[in-house]
């Protein structure tokens, strides 16, 4: 079976984000694999280890530097990678089309894993678009995954900690949530091996994807203003709590 895992090269959660051009950020910062994609890779590799007959292919779309994230995926156990190269990362509609075409040209997916969201743009939609384009079923925010034959049973995180138990069949698209597993990180020998694994590079233009009529463009990026001015509540514990009650009641109006 073939398992594709879509991963994304994103700024480190701790990185300082500076807006450069009107809709671009300064990219001389530390980038990492999107954290939820680590869960996606981990689950794919676990399936491979259990079944033995699976091939895990990591796919990404991005600038040449995104190869670092592909290498991380390979070090975590993916067999090979596909890097769709573009200098100008497109919106979700085009991204999903590009991933779809690249996967279709490469093989026959039984499962496509993605992270449940990317922490840079937080679009929450690529997995659904992939499924629609490939006519597969899709579930996201998956916290438990089981595969028996062609049958897949997942648990999806719902509000308030509830979980929906959902059955679907292969082929399907799975959006991995944090609770799905605990990623096991690669050792140096695995990282060294990953340096020798195959990465197929494809220019986005060469995929000749059908241009969508719809689009979502970023017109402008602005740094978020942190306008809070901390005021310290002083006095005894009793006095402090009295002030807090007043704030909750009169300022925030959340208690009667």
């Amino acid at each position, binding site marked *: 079976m073939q398992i594709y895992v879509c991963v994304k090269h994103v700024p480190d*959660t701790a990185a*300082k984000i500076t807006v450069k051009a009107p809709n671009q950020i300064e990219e001389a910062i*530390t980038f*990492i694999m999107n954290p939820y994609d680590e869960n996606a890779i981990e689950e794919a590799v676990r399936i491979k280890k259990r079944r033995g007959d699976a091939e895990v292919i990591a796919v990404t779309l991005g600038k040449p530097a995104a190869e670092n994230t592909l290498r991380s995926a390979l070090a975590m156990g993916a067999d090979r990678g596909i890097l769709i190269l573009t200098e100008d990362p497109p919106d979700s509609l085009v991204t999903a089309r590009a991933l779809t075409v690249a996967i279709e040209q490469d093989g026959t997916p039984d499962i496509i894993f993605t992270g449940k969201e990317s922490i840079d743009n937080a679009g929450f939609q690529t997995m659904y678009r992939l499924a629609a384009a490939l006519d597969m079923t899709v579930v996201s925010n998956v916290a438990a995954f089981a595969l028996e034959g062609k049958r897949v049973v997942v648990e999806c995180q719902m509000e308030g900690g509830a979980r929906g138990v959902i059955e679907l069949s292969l082929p399907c698209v799975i959006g991995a949530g944090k609770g799905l597993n605990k990623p*096991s990180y690669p*050792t*140096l020998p695995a990282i060294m091996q990953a340096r020798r694994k195959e990465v197929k590079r494809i220019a986005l233009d060469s995929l000749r994807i059908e241009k969508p009529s719809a689009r979502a463009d970023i017109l402008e990026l602005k740094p978020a203003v942190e306008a809070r001015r901390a005021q310290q509540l002083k006095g005894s514990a009793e006095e402090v709590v009295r002030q807090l009650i007043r704030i909750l009641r009169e300022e925030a109006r959340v208690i009667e």
Partner: protein
Amino acid sequence: MNPKYDAIIIGAGVIGSPIAYELAQMGYQTLNIDKLAGPGAGSTAASCAIVRAHYSTEDGVAMAYEGFKYWLDWENYLGHVKDEKGLAKFMNTGSILLKSQGHDWRKVKKHYDAVGVKYEEWDNQKINAMVPVYDLHEYWPVKRPEDPAFFHEPTQMLAGALFCPEGGYVNDPELSVHNIMRATETKGGQFIFNATVVEVRSQDKQVLGVTLQDGTRIDAPVVVNAAGPHSFKINQMAAGVWEGCNIKTKALRHEVMHCPSPEGYDYLNKGYHTSDGDVGIYYRPEVGNMFLIGSEDPECDPQEWVDPDEFYAGQGGLGRDNQLTEAQWKAQCYRLARRIPTLPIPNQPKGVCDLYDCSDDWIPIYDKSDLKGFYMAIGTSGNQYKNAPVVGAMMAELIDACEKGLDHDQQPLQFKLRNIGRSFNVGFFSRKRAINYASSFSVNG
């Protein structure tokens, strides 16, 4: 009338606070001024707080060994003060110095013998019995992962280690300074925070006091520069001081990584602090069963000298601000992974990035200055945390002696180490010294 103190200490980190503590005990009315919100909140908080005895000079070893005795007897040092935050703990893991080409361990051994530091010689078999996860191949010279040679297979083995049963780390360096602050307060010492010194005032070559950013003027006949990475800026504020130093200080950017321990190995409770010159790093346990990995500043690594204010504001840009870089994350983790092949390496860097207040020869300046009443405890170069209580006692004695007329430049103070009973020429740390080429020129001191 400006408020007046006997001594102002600029900085309330792990160096400034013990100086105040000792001066206060001698009857000085002290004031520590810090630009941050609390004691030890600056580069002290990011310190690896390692307590180990190996230094490249005999005096260095003696001072570190003296420092160890303080940490061992922390409550007593603090006069059994109550701190509402609790006390910092010294974790005596024991300290391994791998015998490698990266350390002049023969010299260290000689110093250990001279000072009386307890140690054992371990062969590789013994090391592996104590630390089964270490692979003891030799990887020298230190390289970066960008260099293909980094991945070459080793052929030689290391030749054992020196093991000091006395050594380890302090679990919460910031808290340790809070402890000292509380102890100082019981002796009458005062602290102010969120206060930035913008001027060191003087007249006729005698220091008068300082001026804060908000215009407040505070007077004192004694002003001590313990400003850590900001030390060179403070020195430049004081008339003739910076110019009068033969040894200068600068702020050096430094990254420390936290990498999880291999599955099934309880590094937190069973591991040792290890100095591994063969791959240019040192490591110690960290909460969460992590390896804390510091760099021994190998020559192949870049050195970024930065402006401390820009750095802390995060304005320096990649590799110049206070954020970890992927390249250095890989360099330090991969180096440890050569020693521990089963080490799992996360994709996301984790750790701390802060500054060393680095001197030209990586040996501190503990001295008076060319301005009367102005003293310096600076240039700690990332390796003086362990010595801080000793520095406090030594600086207080130096200040008191100079204020009473000692010409320290002509007749350097001889300081007696209280615990190990050895005397020590404080002139070793003089600002006027020539660069000390016996130094390792690294964090090893």
